[in-house]
């Protein structure tokens, strides 16, 4: 069970949150081509390692915020507000270890 540090409430169980996926790129204008639109809509970095993602403390303060998390270790490196610039995170090598292997 992830323990997610809500910037407003402190550390809470994953079960209190809703996942919003990777922080998407900015919304393209309506006149973008089909390919660029598809890229925005569907393509994901889906990184093995650090991901910038959205969470909402839906069963708590109701706020959306961003998390920098390692998708291999699940360690949470940083948390920042919605719309804010992501902090710089250094995590040399940590995600090299593969989950089960």
């Amino acid at each position: 069970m992830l323990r997610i540090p809500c910037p407003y409430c402190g550390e809470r169980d994953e079960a209190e949150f809703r996942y919003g996926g990777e922080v998407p790129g900015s919304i393209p204008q309506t006149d973008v081509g089909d390919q660029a639109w598809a890229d925005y809509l569907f393509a994901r970095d889906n990184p093995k390692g650090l991901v910038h993602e959205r969470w909402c403390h839906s069963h708590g303060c109701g706020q959306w915020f961003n998390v920098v998390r390692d998708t291999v270790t699940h360690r949470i490196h940083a948390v920042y507000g919605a719309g804010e610039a992501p902090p710089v995170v250094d995590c040399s090598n940590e995600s090299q270890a593969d989950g089960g292997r």
Partner: protein
Amino acid sequence: MSPSQPLRKAQGGRIDRTRTVAFRFDGRRYLGHPGDTLASALLANGVKVMGRSMKLHRPRGVLSAGVEEPNALFSVDWGSGKIPSIRATVMPALDGLVAQSQNCFPSVNFDLGRALDFTHRLWPAGFYYKMFKWPSWRAFEWAVRRTAGIGRLPDGTDRTRYRHLNSHCDVLVVGSGPSGLAAALEAGRRGEDVLVVEQDVAFGGSLLHDPMAIDGAASDDWLEAALAELDGMDNVRLMANATAAGCYDHNLVTIHDRSAAYRSDGPVETFHKVRARRIVLATGATEQPMLFGNNDLPGIMLAGAVHAYVGRYAVNCGQRVAGVVNNDAGWHSLLAVHDAGTAVRAIVDTRGDVERELLDAAEERGIAVHPGATPLTARGSSGVRGLRFAAANETTKQVDCDLIAMSGGLNPTTQLYSQAGGKLRYDERRHCFVPDKDPADLDVVGAASGSFGWENGSSVRPCTVAPVRTGRQWVDFQHDVTAADIELAVRENYVSVEHMKRYTTAGMAVDQGKTSNLGVLSLLAQLTGRSPGEVGTTTARPQFMPVTMGAIAGNRRGDFYRPAKRLAAHDWHAGEGAVFDDYGAWKRPAFYGDDRDASIAREVLAVRQSVGFFDGSPLGKIEVKGPDAARFLDRIYVNNVLTLKPGRVRYGLMLNENGVVIDDGVFVRQDEDHFLVNTTSGNAERIAAWLEEWHQCEFFDMRLVLSNVTSQWAVATLAGPDARAVLQSLPGLIDLSTASFPHLRFAAGHLADGMPYRLQRVSFSGEQSYELSVPSNRAASIFERLQAAAGPGKLVPIGVEALMVLRTEKGFVHVGVDTDGTTNPLDIGFGAVVDRKQRDFIGARSLARPNDRRTDRRQLVGFELLDRNASVPAGAHFVTGSNGGRRSEGFVTSACDSPTLGRTIGIGLIEGGFGRKGEEVLVYDSGRNLPARIVDPCFYDPSGERMRA
């Protein structure tokens, strides 16, 4: 010596000799003492054969004295029905308990299944992959399945209650041996919140059978003092009978607590979820077996276990013991066993360089020692009669014995450590895997960390060296995996440790290889010329010990499985004869009365002919307030929001970014910068969250606030030609005449008695219809007042099902029923609205993709069956072609036997539907084909006169 327990020593042990317990095993009654496990009590009574192996039905005795037990698994009934595969070595011997051996017929001592053992050559590892292909696996499967599996499904009803408990601590100590208790004392004294969990019924770990000197004191005294001190600390909690079963992300440990599990008056099992700042693993070490021929005979036990039985339970497991060891720990146990009165005849050590001290100690006691020897085979068939071994000089020798105590070395108990992400290292000298790099916030101490305490420099010889294969040598007792199976797998190139595990199934039994994994690894290493470190281990996963599934589910059963929301006027509806059903999270009236179809028809006609009343409270209601509210909602809805005037209501559609319809409903402009958004009932929470998400994450510059008032307001919908008259009777309400309050208007105010209300004139039924909102706590009273005002029997309550019929007659879509995750607004006839809106809205761009613009997409139409008396359910398909080349062109999304029209009608999605009005099509359902005609989806009052009346 009590006659009933011939092998019980007269003194010693931690059993309560003042009391006896009586239990049954395979029909016979046995006596034991409180403090006994089933295994110790049966051993005391001289029972040797306790089970049969899974595959070959070999007779098996008890191997261990702990959770690692692979052999002595019983079906046990302590009042909760027969529960399979209970480890006799940890199950307390309770008074009245009934135990049975498993996997044998007719009895554990004579089992016909043994035939499989006599033909064992036909069943090597993975034999089933090589045969049973013809005619098909199904022809054999039933028989194979019956031989697999041990134990049976529990019988009777489960009386156990299961509980979850979340908790927090600074330090979680797993294991209460000397190392765990020392760690707990240290942290406790520092004032930290400490939780100590111990799977055993008693605290003390190895000290319970193996006293030693700690801090200069006798360990019994130390233990007593330590427990007393810990008990006295407010910040320390001690839990026995509680197994740490899983170690998950972010230091969350699950604990299966059976401290109240065996109570006759109402057992409880608790599943703890402990969030620990720091974890200390003091889980000890597990002794490994030795490999030699017939090493699975009853009467061959782990040396530490023999020690535990004599030390803790005062049971002599045999009269004449032979030891087979490769390490000093085994010597330690054997010497202690001998000193406790169980005579050890000989010690066979595979190492040539045994410490002088040990040799002397044996000599003192008159024990023959054979350093550098190789155990060959155990003699006997359903019990041990002797041991043959090759002495250092390679002559074959033999000792007569009735018990072989073996020790293949200790292996740290690191499953939880590995689950937490810890890395193991192979220790050549001690021949075991020890923790190498601890994960953050986790420490391993004591035997679990590889410090076994007494070993003084000498190394352990891998237990698998035996070059001479005499007889079959078992590696995994429960799954009957032998050294030959490992050899076969290697020969066939299943040399990855994971392939080995899966091909031979070694380590996959209920003990998860606690006494076999190391053996497999070292054999594999030896056979492939690698070191065990290079071979690596398989992955330890939760559960460390299997956990009752009910405990993991907790009390989430029945009504607590998933919470249901109840309407404020639930009881009122019940009084009206409502039959409730689940709609999203809600329990709502489906219809009123006993006969589903008749009730629905009656309710529909009431709305069409006079007036019906519908509880629409779950309707989502979200206030959006602020100077940018209109601009925000204009992005959210497909429809134009900016042009709506205050006091007016408009119908709107919401899409996701992929252009798919996700919700619909009306929105109200209460004031210039104050909107009220209505969502469908099922989506109320989801859309509230959707609006928040867009506001907080994307449109955070827009100045507006959102307030979800769904639960504050109960909604009474009155629909039908008489609706106005009934509603107008409420004193203080505005004038409802169409002139002053036409269709799609909104008003708010207070009734004469001061009750606040909101009123909107919208219709989902096609009749003149009003949605009156009042505070939820007044729901029942307003319903009653309306009923009274209408006069007896006039105001007919209608359920969700009637409403569905009404809206189907009217051709109104129900999002999620008439649409699915692929439907865009164009498909349901909103192309013009989409095209008119020049501004961007969520999903707009997707609607411009070629696929979204295709004219042969599935589009919403109505249909009527040509045969007026036929009927067809939702879920039928529109098809072309016949049997072979049949193709679906779409499907019926809603259908009903319309009470208003007296025939079956429906709406559905069909390819290119907009251009096919009047066409005849076939409707297919479960093998039937019915001709139908495509028509406009609105079957009732297409001009909308009645709605606007």
